[in-house]
């Protein structure tokens, strides 16, 4: 075994794990922001799919990757606006609305793909950007600093979002609205404004996650995400609604995926067992969730619409 698992293999696996974790991280950070303000969005996967298609299509037509990324974000913002309208002022039940958003995204992304593209054509992919100096460090450089820009963006968002949530007046309002909207309202904090902002920001990140995935793979197909958005929701619980926790969960998930891929490539897993091995990330996530579950309390107002004066 030890002659198969060399330093090169380990470094490649870790780097691949970080890369695989990126779309999960973007989507679950977005979901965490929404949930901190008390809004559950089960439609992440649908928003990711639409974001993925929109960015894929724009890159295909314009050959501009960054225009594609912007389109993914814009798609997320629009979906977020829609979701915010139905769940905040119209107070629709969040669980069912989210499933509706998912089904809409799943169907609409495929429909648009069939109508506008038809046969899958490859698009330009991100190219790696080596961080000056840091990427030259042996081993560490290769693991952490030779990635595509989307990886750096996702991981830089972790401290940024943690700072916003924990250190800014707006973050304080988000936390208050998610725990006790009536208290926030009584102090003049607009619950609808805060929730609109978090829902739209969260969906923008889901759209970005979709764009990251499509441009990373350089392709789009029906149900490209394969339920990644749902896993991202699970990772929010795993990460106890905190950005660093969500990052840890995404990394665990990415690493397990990378290890399974690597083991298959190296022929360590017999062909007959490869389908079972493909389930490993999901199984390990569920086990991790069970271990983490109930250690932390979810935002008290999660899924509860707020009605003033009740």
């Amino acid at each position, binding site marked *: 075994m030890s002659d198969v698992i060399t330093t090169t293999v380990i470094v490649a696996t870790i780097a691949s794990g970080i890369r695989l974790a990126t779309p999960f991280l973007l989507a679950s950070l977005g979901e965490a922001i929404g949930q901190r303000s008390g809004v559950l969005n089960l439609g992440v996967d649908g928003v990711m799919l639409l974001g993925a298609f929109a960015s894929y299509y724009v890159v295909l037509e314009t050959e501009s990757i960054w225009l594609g990324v912007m389109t993914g974000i814009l798609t997320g913002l629009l979906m977020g606006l829609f979701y915010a309208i139905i769940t905040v002022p119209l107070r629709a039940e969040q669980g069912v609305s989210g499933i509706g958003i998912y089904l809409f995204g799943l169907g609409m992304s495929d429909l648009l793909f069939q109508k506008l593209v038809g046969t899958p054509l490859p698009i330009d992919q991100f190219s790696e950007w080596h961080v000056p100096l840091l990427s030259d460090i042996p081993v560490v450089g290769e693991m952490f600093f030779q990635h595509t820009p989307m990886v750096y963006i996702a991981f830089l968002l972790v401290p940024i979002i943690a700072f916003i949530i924990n250190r800014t*007046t707006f*973050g*304080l309002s988000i936390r208050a609205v998610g725990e*006790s909207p009536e208290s926030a309202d009584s*102090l003049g904090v607009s619950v609808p404004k805060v929730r609109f902002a978090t829902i739209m920001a969260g969906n923008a990140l889901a759209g970005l996650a979709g764009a990251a995935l499509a441009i990373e793979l350089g392709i789009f197909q029906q149900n490209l995400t394969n339920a990644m958005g749902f896993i991202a929701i699970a990772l929010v619980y795993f990460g106890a609604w905190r950005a660093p926790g969500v990052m840890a969960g995404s990394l665990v998930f990415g690493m397990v995926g990378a290890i399974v891929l690597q083991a298959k490539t190296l022929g360590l897993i017999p062909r007959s067992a490869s389908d079972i091995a493909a389930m490993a990330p999901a199984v390990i996530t569920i086990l991790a969730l069970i271990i983490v579950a109930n250690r932390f*309390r979810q935002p008290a107002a999660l899924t509860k619409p707020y009605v003033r004066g009740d």
Partner: protein
Amino acid sequence: MNSVSASIQSDRQPMLEMRGITKRFPGVIANDNVSFDVLPGEVHTLLGENGAGKSTLMKILYGLYQPDEGDVLINGEKVSLQSPSDAIDHRIGMIHQHFMLVSSLTVAENVALGLSSTRGPITDLKQVAKKIKSLSDRYGLHVDPDAYIWQLAVGERQRVEIIKALYRDVQLLVLDEPTAVLTPQEVDDFFVILREMTSDGRGLIFISHKMNEVMELSDRISVLRLGRLVGTTTPQETTREALAQMMVGREVDNTREERPATIGRTALSINRLSVGGDRGVDALIDFSLDVQQGEIVGLAGVSGNGQRELAEAISGLRPIKSGSISLFHDGNPKPIGGLGPKAVREAGLSFVPEERMRDGAIGEFSVADNMVLHNHHSTRFSRGGFLNFGEIHRHSQKLVDDFQVKTPSIDTPAKNLSGGNIQKMIIARELDSDPEVLIAAQPTRGVDIGAAEYIHARLVAARNAGTAILVISEDLDEVMLLADRIAVICQGRMMGVVDRIDASREQLGLMMAGVTD
């Protein structure tokens, strides 16, 4: 009329005037042409039963509701209060009965919430903490700015609410039943703080139904009944009895009936009971108490000291850690701890829960269905799994008549009844089986005076018929009125039992605060 004459008596300009406020909800007029004003530096009490319109009037003042008619004037100028932030801008503050605090945040974070920061978008909690310290020094409010709300006792939480108001330099503060959660001694301290605030020229609106507090604190008292202003008076011009009469619209009978000389055998025995709490800390520790046939034992204590967990443990809703709970049949103990609610009921215990709409009744269900919630599976009300609607209706109608439950019909959903009538419905159901033991948790909380009187009378009648009754109440007046013996709980421990005849408010207050001699 009243408010006009009241303001003419003074040459000071009112800081607040509410003129001719009318607010209608479907089917009810919550406020009917109500006028009310507050002068700088005065405590103006708003007195009235549940549903009299006090909360509606205050919600209009705080921008939570818009009036259908009438004007609100602040310092003589007409204002429009569309939301709490408008009210805050006019330096109006409100301390709600259920505190508006975010328990997962610190004191400083709760105070800073909704305010702009000296550091722009970034919070300045150190500055906030400093200002909290100086405010608490000045007004004698002792609170640690870095403590999380969930770590604080109820009295401390209330001080946080006061600090929130002072921090915003509130000029007019509404206090909605602020003393409900305090011991008598804490109330004294609290009143000192309030007087400190009025001496700065701030105006206070005090909402309460505790007559002795109202008489002690108020400069003026306005009484609301059924949405209308009955009158405005001062403590010098009125008496507690006259105020009660204004509130209810008739004379109130507050005489108590002594228990019969004969007390029976022990019916309920709680022995060294320990029960876990929701936050990991044990809610009851080594708690012992006996209740005899034909007596009412009142359990007094400040809210959140283990009363809810005790009621749940006795009624089978909460597992016990150690110790025992026993009912007695012909002198033989039957342990019921941890048996579950059905077995406990079958052993002869009835239970009136504290959260009546959560644990005592199903709002969507009809009155008739609610009347048989506990025994619809009995052979009397069902055969082979099919409900016997005829019998259920006959039975429910009889209970509704017997217990004077005011409802359009027994098919009306319970949630459409007033709080007092829902409680009468639950009491009817629970007393109907002639239980050996009745646990009544907060039996008259949020219930109008008329219904409370009636419920008290039924409890006394059940006691006289031999039922052993444990009344768990945070209302010390109720305990002193109803109980033959008074037990006091503090932080999950039994502080002692005294005969009502020997009990004084001061002694009970000290026990409620955990002071033992």
